[in-house]
């Protein structure tokens, strides 16, 4: 009762011939061509992921150097300073200067 039926699925099989030679090749760093093909799906998947990641990466913001323009009509220490905040393009707006000529605040509306 403690024995299994005698069927091919349970019989001891002989390994494929040439096992030791193939192992020597593996140890010598000569992978079989069949093993090399295993890397093809992995490389393709890595390339697809790289394309997706690079495609979604934010583009580098355009750096705009502030431009300083002297305004002698307002006062000696007054300058117009123009800049844009990061890559976002600011909409056109009215500019109001408070407390001229001692300017402290510029509000964009």
């Amino acid at each position: 009762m403690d024995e299994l039926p005698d069927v091919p699925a349970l019989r001891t099989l002989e390994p494929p011939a040439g096992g030791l030679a193939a192992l020597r090749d593996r140890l010598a760093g000569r992978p079989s061509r069949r093993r090399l093909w295993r890397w093809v799906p992995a490389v393709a998947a890595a390339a697809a992921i790289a394309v997706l990641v690079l495609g979604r990466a934010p583009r580098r913001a355009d750096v705009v150097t502030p431009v300083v323009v002297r305004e002698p009509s307002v006062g000696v220490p007054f300058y117009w300073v123009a800049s844009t905040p990061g890559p976002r393009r600011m909409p056109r707006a009215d500019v109001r200067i408070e407390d001229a000529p001692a300017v402290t605040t510029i509000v964009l509306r």
Partner: protein
Amino acid sequence: MHTQPQAHRDALEELYVAHERGLYNVAYRYVWHAEDARDVVHDAFVRLWRKRAALDWDRAAGLAYTIVLGLARNRRRSLAIRRAFGLPVRDAERPDAALAAARLDAAVRSCIDELPDRLRSVLVMCQYSGLDHAAIAAALGIAVGTVGSRRSEAVARIRARLEELGHG
């Protein structure tokens, strides 16, 4: 004593020649394919080769079986995932259709596949490794007495399942 590179190589090849058949048969009962089973065995020997400097060659056979079982389980899982995603896999080799016992053979395979791994690993190690129960217990990390009880449980489950399938 194996301290020189050539001595390590000789010891590894001796181990391979002595246990190739047992290791192959253990791996085969997980992957059911000759080339996959041989790949598993070779992968195990590549790992042994990387560990050669720290290896106790007198106990290397048990370690080889431990590694083969781990790799065979992994290969089996990856084959299942590939099938689930519809990726191509090599079909399990079918039993010889010319044999009168082909249906019984297929049923036994499915019974082995249905066993939980704690029973399956013990069963295939007892059937094919040629190791004694103490060595099998050490390779699997279980008590010696557990080897016999799990083997009996595995056989009983297979026989019961075969009866359910009409092969009693």
